[in-house]
């Protein structure tokens, strides 16, 4: 396809791949051709079927029908072993590494080559050095995984794939856990791999990455492959439209904030995790009525713990949280139920594990946390009629689909599940709203809706604390930005600071540079 391709046989060719899970038609008659030595992006909303397609290619799932051609040869990929032997390597979104093993041990995992480890170790060490020389992947083979930064852990995953002879490397949402600088580094490595003749398939929902690195891009929507374009010949706006099926606003439209009095004030808060490691270190800040304060940071720098401590879910080891001038604790304990009564609503980061009970009916989740509100009760009994009526109102107002309050929550898509949580929390008319990763795993159409809703809530004079690892989201929504690194707030960049500046702060080297 591309002019640079010497070998006309595509590295990977998918012909008529079809896959269903129960009622969900995840892949509909997919045709895809990936040119050898190219970087091919696959973009689509969450739930569009990207990961399913790659899982079929990697042997995790079997296609109901269709054909996979590797190097022009028809291949029955029954499990990931077959895929690996065929030269396909995969770097998962969530790394598959043994945290307390060294890099070397992780690379040789599954290919130890005998009862005794010694021989395998020597062989792997030699091979690693060669791979590192060729591709410039510098990682100390004896470093322990859990001591490495995330970007390097990802490199280990890539090394693993290369050691197993991967010619085609699939990366599933590789930048979700990286700082902008680490992401840049990753892209340089991918370019290097390409230069060495490897083929890269990059799955992402971030348009910016597609534009920056890929040669060709294929767009998926609702299980279908809707278009394939040469990256140089397309635009972000076109791709976004293809992904969603209609025109989308990529930026949030909002006016100036009119901050009022302080609603939420966090004073010298310190939070330790179960092992006694300090996750939030002496953090203080304020959120005023009518403003959105965004906390930026790479995942794992204490934002989650901070949010949970304010919401009363995690115990703070010291410090104070004050709402509307009153401390929120009762004898040193903070109780989520009490906080709700004081007007604090919380959209948790992880809706599957915290915000929802997936096996419950939709209407049951629409009262989770507010089950002691008299309007949902008749004495000790649930007022089923009132609950369902209330759920239907929220379904209509938030356009939750399918509009069925009796449907099991697990059967809603990610975006609609998030709307269930948002509807529940926002419709309580809270004075202060904590929002964690409001659009994680949510499709673009719903992102637009959620962002608009948050901005209008701000305009109603609510105080909003936003935590997100999506820097774009923080920048477009927040009136003030705080950057967290290693448990402390390392800076408050100007609202219109550029990505570079915030990115440096997120990496913990911002302070000196910024001042």
């Amino acid at each position, binding site marked *: 396809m591309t002019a640079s391709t010497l070998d006309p046989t595509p590295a990977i060719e998918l012909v008529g791949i079809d896959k269903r*899970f*129960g009622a969900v038609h995840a892949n509909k008659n997919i045709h895809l051709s990936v040119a050898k030595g190219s970087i091919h992006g696959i973009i689509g909303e969450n739930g569009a079927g990207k990961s399913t397609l790659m899982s079929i290619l990697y042997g995790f799932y079997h296609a109901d029908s269709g054909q996979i051609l590797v190097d022009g040869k028809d291949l029955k990929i029954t499990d990931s072993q077959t895929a690996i032997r065929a030269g396909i390597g995969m770097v998962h979104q969530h790394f598959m590494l043994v945290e307390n093993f060294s890099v070397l041990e992780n690379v040789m995992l599954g290919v130890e080559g005998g009862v005794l480890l010694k021989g395998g170790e020597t062989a792997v060490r030699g091979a690693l050095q060669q791979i590192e020389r060729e591709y410039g992947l510098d990682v100390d083979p004896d470093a322990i995984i859990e001591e490495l930064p995330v970007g390097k852990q990802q490199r280990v995953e890539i090394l693993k794939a290369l050691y197993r002879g991967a010619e085609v490397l699939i990366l599933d949402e590789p930048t979700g856990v990286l700082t902008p600088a680490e992401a840049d580094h990753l892209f340089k490595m991918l370019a290097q791999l390409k230069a060495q003749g490897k083929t890269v398939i990059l799955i992402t929902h971030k348009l910016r990455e597609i534009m920056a690195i890929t040669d060709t891009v294929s767009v998926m929507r609702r299980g279908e492959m809707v278009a394939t374009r040469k990256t140089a010949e397309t635009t972000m706006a076109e791709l976004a439209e293809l992904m969603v099926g209609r025109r989308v606003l990529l930026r949030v439209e909002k006016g100036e904030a009119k901050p009022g009095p302080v609603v939420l004030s966090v004073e010298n808060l310190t939070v330790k995790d179960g092992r006694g490691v300090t996750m939030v270190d002496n953090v203080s800040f304020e959120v005023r009525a009518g403003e959105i304060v965004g906390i930026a940071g790479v995942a794992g720098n204490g934002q989650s713990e901070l949010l949970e401590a304010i919401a009363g879910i995690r115990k703070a080891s010291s410090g104070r949280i004050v709402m509307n001038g009153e401390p929120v604790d009762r004898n040193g304990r903070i109780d989520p139920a009490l906080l709700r009564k004081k007007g604090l609503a919380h959209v948790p980061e992880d809706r599957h594990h915290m915000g929802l009970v997936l096996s419950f009916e939709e209407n049951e989740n629409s009262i989770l946390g507010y089950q002691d509100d008299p309007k949902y009760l008749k004495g000790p009994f649930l007022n089923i009629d009132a609950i369902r009526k209330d759920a239907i109102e929220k379904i209509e107002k938030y356009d939750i689909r399918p509009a069925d309050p009796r449907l099991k929550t697990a059967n809603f898509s990610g975006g609609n599940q998030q709307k269930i949580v948002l509807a529940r929390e926002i419709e309580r008319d809270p004075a202060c709203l904590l929002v964690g990763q409001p659009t994680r795993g949510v499709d673009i159409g719903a992102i637009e809706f959620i962002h608009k809703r948050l901005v209008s809530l701000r305009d109603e004079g609510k105080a909003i604390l936003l935590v997100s690892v999506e820097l774009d989201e923080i920048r477009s929504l927040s009136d003030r930005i705080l950057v967290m690194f290693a448990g402390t707030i390392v800076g408050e960049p100007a609202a219109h600071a550029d990505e570079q500046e915030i990115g440096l702060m997120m990496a913990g080297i911002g302070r000196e540079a910024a001042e």
Partner: protein
Amino acid sequence: MSVPLGTLPRWVNFGLLPLLNVAVAFAISGLVVLFIGENPIEAVKYLVAGALGDGEGIAFTLYYATNFIFTGLAVAVAFHGGLFNIGGEGQVYLGGLGVAFAALALDRYMPWYITAVLATAAAFAFGAAWAFIPAWLQAKRGSHIVITTIMFNFIAAALMVYLLVNVIKQPGNMSPQTRLFEEGGQLPKLGWLMQVFGLDIGAAPFNVSFLIALVAAFAVWLLIWRTRFGFEIRTMGTNATAAVYAGIPYVKTVVVTMLISGGLSGMMALNPVMGDAGKLQIDFPAGAGFVGIAVALMGRSHPVGIVIASILFGVLYQGGAALAFDMPNISREVIILIQGLVILFAGALEHMFRPALIVLFAPKPKSVAASAAGAA
């Protein structure tokens, strides 16, 4: 992007699957019977005839079922809260003590229905109290409730033997048991109910506690699916993190759930103690606390399922006894083996046939995909 699990139609999940499990258990039991040298078809005939063949058999079946309904409900309530209460046996035993105290105190002065109310309350309270310590240990200290409730079964057995031998034994009686309750301390038999269906109760101890069990089943349904507390129990049981998020107090919810569970177990004692023997005896729970686990598993922790599963186990108990009587080659131990197989297939191996059934019955796509493949 989660993989949607195959969901089965309700009739398959709640009807076909349990039926299949029981059928396989019977098929293997049939092989055992064959091995012993008896005719399995004949054996099934005796079993069914013994359990359902006449009024007395049916009444006996329902008498046993009553026990299992109570203990099954007890296991189910705890299970909805994510707690595995293995301590039914001990809680039943202690419940019996409560029943005996109420009956011994009141039987000479009160009609049976007054005594029954107080005995029910006492049975519930004693069973609940026995579940309290494991519950509290779980909630406060994280001591695993499976371990503690099992241990409490042994403590209950030892305590009850001590009490029956040394404290509440009827003076001058050889066996460790209380005196016989007077009429005001005994639950009436349900002969009239059998007569409605034109059946004769015979000598079966089928009594009013069956009706109490049905009321309890309804009450459990109300509790779990229609009350705020039930909502909190289910939230805690299905997603503990969401329960914390929702401000559901863990300690209180664990303790109260276990009190209700233990109380339901305790109520079982009404049936054998006040409804049948008319006295408190050693070892009266006779394993019903454990059968409750199988019943709750088989009944999918739903009161309707539990009542049905209880009746099935009632059939096995009563029919098994008849079979052992009619086919001397089939000893009591073989009957226990058959019951064990049913528990094994309905409980432990509950999910064995599920994948196959999902392939067969999970919403159509398979056939559509197959035709698509045919077209391609």
